[in-house]
C-alpha cells in the first residue's frame, strides 16, 4: 500500500515534516475550536478564513512591488492575518453597534471581504508576474511541492499556538462556561475573548497553506463537534478534539501524499467528517444507536408502568402496545387475566411511584437530576439508606391515614 509509507512517516523527510506539521495544526485547531464552539461562535472562523483573501492578495502585490517575488509564506501569512483581523473587528463592530445578529454580520463580512479579495486577485492576474498560480493553492490547500522551510514554519507555528492554547486553557474554560462568573472572579473577560479569537485567527492563517481557506473552517468545527459527542466535560472535550483534529490531519495528509489528484485540504476534511459520522453512530453518550435504544426502552417502560398501574386499579386497558408488553412480560395472560407475577409487579410499580412522589417532594433538586432514570426500579437509583427513609415516611403517612378513617 502506497499510503502506509506516508502514514508512518517513511516517505521522505519533507512529507514527514508536512504530516507532523499538519497534525500539530489539526490538534491546535481542534483545541481552540472547542472553546469557540462552547462560546457558540463556531462560524466566526468562516468569516476569519474568508477575510484572509484580500490580505493574501495585498501582501502578494506589495511583495512583488518591493522585491519582485511574491510567494514568501511568512509575508503572505502576515498579510492574511492583517485583513482577517480587520474582518474579525468588522463582525464585532456590526454586532455591537447595530441591531444585526452575529450570523448576518459573519455572512456580510465573509462575502464582502472575499469579494474584495477576488477583485485584488484579478488585479494580480494583470501584473503578469507569472507566479500568481502560487496563490491558487491557498484557496483549496495544497501540500504538494511545499518547501522545507514552509513546512518547518507551519509545524513550529502550530506547535507554539498549541502551547499558548494549553497555557490559557483555564481562563478559556471559565469564560466559555460562565462569562459573568469569570468576570466576577476577576478574569478580564474581554481580553480572554480577544486571546481566544486571536488564537483562532492564528490557527486559520497557519492552516491556509495546508487546508485552504474554505476548508480550514472544518478543522476548527468538525473535531470539536465530534468530541462533544463523546463527553460532557469541557476539559476532556478539548483534549479529544485535539486528538481527533491531529488524527484527521495526519491521515488526510498521508492519503494526499500517496497519489495524484488527492487534494490535502479536502482529504483532511473528509477524514474528519468520517470520524464524526462514526462517533455520531457509536458514541455511548450521545450516539444515535445508544439514543435509539434508550428511546425505545423508555417508551416500552412507560407503557409497562401505565399498564401495571391500571391493573392495580382494575381499569380497562385499551392501548395495544401496553397490552402486548404486559403479555410479553408474563404479567397478563392471553385471555387478559392478570397473573400473580403481574400483580406483584404492579405492587412494586405502585410502591416505586409513591417513593418517587415523596422523593420529588422532599428532594426536588436531586429528583430533577435523576428524572431521566424514573422508569428504573427505585432500588437501583437511590442508596439503601435513603430508600429506607422514604419507605418509613410512607408507612407513617399510611398509618396516619388509617387513623383518620
Amino acid at each position, binding site marked *: 500500500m502506497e499510503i502506509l509509507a506516508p502514514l508512518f512517516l517513511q516517505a521522505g523527510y519533507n512529507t514527514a515534516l508536512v504530516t507532523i506539521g499538519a497534525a500539530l495544526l489539526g490538534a491546535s485547531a481542534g483545541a481552540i475550536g472547542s472553546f469557540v464552539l462552547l462560546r457558540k461562535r463556531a462560524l466566526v472562523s468562516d468569516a476569519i478564513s474568508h477575510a484572509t483573501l484580500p490580505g493574501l492578495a495585498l501582501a502578494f502585490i506589495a511583495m512583488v512591488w518591493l522585491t519582485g517575488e511574491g510567494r514568501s509564506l511568512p509575508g503572505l501569512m502576515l498579510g492574511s492575518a492583517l485583513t482577517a483581523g480587520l474582518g474579525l473587528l468588522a463582525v464585532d463592530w456590526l454586532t455591537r453597534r447595530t441591531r444585526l445578529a452575529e450570523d448576518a454580520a459573519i455572512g456580510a463580512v465573509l462575502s464582502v471581504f472575499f469579494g474584495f479579495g477576488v477583485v485584488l486577485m484579478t488585479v494580480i492576474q494583470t501584473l503578469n508576474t507569472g507566479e500568481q498560480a502560487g496563490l491558487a493553492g491557498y484557496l483549496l490547500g495544497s501540500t504538494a511541492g511545499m518547501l522545507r522551510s514552509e513546512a518547518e514554519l507551519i509545524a513550529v507555528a502550530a506547535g507554539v499556538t498549541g502551547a499558548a492554547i494549553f497555557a490559557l486553557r483555564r481562563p478559556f474554560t471559565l469564560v466559555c462556561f460562565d462569562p459573568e462568573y469569570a468576570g466576577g472572579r476577576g478574569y478580564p473577560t474581554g481580553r480572554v475573548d480577544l486571546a481566544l479569537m486571536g488564537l483562532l485567527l492564528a490557527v486559520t492563517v497557519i492552516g491556509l497553506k495546508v487546508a485552504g481557506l474554505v476548508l480550514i473552517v472544518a478543522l476548527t468545527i468538525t473535531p470539536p463537534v465530534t468530541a462533544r459527542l463523546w463527553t460532557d466535560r469541557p476539559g476532556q472535550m478539548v483534549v479529544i478534539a485535539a486528538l481527533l483534529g491531529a488524527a484527521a490531519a495526519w491521515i488526510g495528509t498521508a492519503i494526499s501524499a500517496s497519489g495524484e489528484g488527492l487534494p490535502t485540504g479536502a482529504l483532511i476534511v473528509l477524514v474528519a467528517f468520517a470520524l464524526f459520522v462514526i462517533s455520531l453512530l457509536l458514541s455511548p453518550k450521545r450516539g444515535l444507536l445508544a439514543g435509539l435504544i434508550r428511546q425505545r426502552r423508555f*417508551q416500552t417502560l412507560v407503557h409497562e408502568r*401505565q399498564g401495571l398501574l391500571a391493573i392495580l386499579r382494575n*381499569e380497562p386497558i385499551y392501548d395495544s402496545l401496553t397490552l402486548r408488553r404486559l403479555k410479553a412480560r408474563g404479567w397478563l395472560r392471553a385471555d387478559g387475566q392478570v397473573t400473580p407475577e403481574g400483580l406483584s409487579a404492579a405492587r412494586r410499580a405502585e410502591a416505586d411511584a409513591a417513593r418517587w*412522589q415523596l422523593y420529588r417532594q422532599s*428532594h426536588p433538586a436531586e429528583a430533577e437530576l435523576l*428524572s431521566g432514570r424514573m422508569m428504573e426500579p427505585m432500588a437501583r437509583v437511590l442508596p439503601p439508606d435513603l430508600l429506607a427513609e422514604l419507605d418509613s415516611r*410512607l408507612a407513617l403517612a399510611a398509618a396516619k391515614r388509617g387513623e383518620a378513617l
Partner: protein
Amino acid sequence: MTATAELVVDAGRRIAQDHPESPLAIAGLTVRYGDKPVLFGVDYATPPGAMLAIIGPNGAGKSTLIKAALGIVPKVTGEVTLFGRPQAQERHRIAYVPQRAGVDWDFPATVLDVVLMGLYREMGLWRFTGARHRKTALDCLERVGMRNFADRQIGQLSGGQQQRVFLARALAQDAELYVMDEPFAGVDAATERAIITVLKELNARGKTIICVHHDLATVAEYFTHVLIVNMHKIAEGPVAEAFTEANLQAAYGGRLSGAQVTRLAGASS
C-alpha cells in the same frame, strides 16, 4: 386524595372521548426533552366555561403541557381532543398566546401588523388586509387600551404593552378557548388588571380560559379551577377544592415554606 391516587397515570385512555364537551381534554400525555421526561401520563378534561390556572413549580412542565396539547411540541404518547374532536380539526376555535419572551421583538412590524396575524384564517387566498380587517384589529386594540399605539414599531413597547398586543391578537381570533402561557409574567400592575378584566369578561360570555400561571397569590382571585402539575398531575378541580395546602405541598415540596403554603391555601377558602 390519597398519596398514590395522584400518581394515577392511565385513568383510561379514552378520557378525551368521554368528555366530548370539554374544550381541551388530554389523556396519558407524556412528553420528554432529550432524556428527561417533562410530563408523564397526564389526564385532564377542562370543564367548559372554566377559568383555569395551570400551576406548578418551575420546570414542572406547565408550558410544555399546553404546547403539546396544541401540537406545538411533539409528544411521546397520549391523546388530545379539542371540543371532542382531533386537535387539527378544531384549531380555529382556539386562540393561543405564547410566552412574550419567545419571540423577537426587534422584528420589523407594527402593533397593528401583529394583531392582524390573528385574522389569518379570515383572509382569503390572497390574504390582503381589507378595511374590515383593519377595523376589527383596531377594535381589539381598543379593548386592551392600545388603540393609540397601532402604528408603533413593536420593539418600542414595554413588556406590559407587548402582552396587551398579544392579548389583542388573541381577541381578533374570536375563539372559544383562550390558551395563554404566563400572561402576567413581567407585566406592570396596571396591565395585569387590564388583562384580567378582559379575561373575566370573556369568561362571563362563556369562553373557556386556560392560563399557565406562576403567581400563587392571585390564583384564588383570578381563577375558578386549577390544574396542579409537577411532571405528573398532582391535583385538579375547582379552586376551593384543589388549591389546598396538601396539594401545594405535594407539588412544590421544599420549594415553598410550610408557612407560605398554609397562607396561600388559606386565602382561597
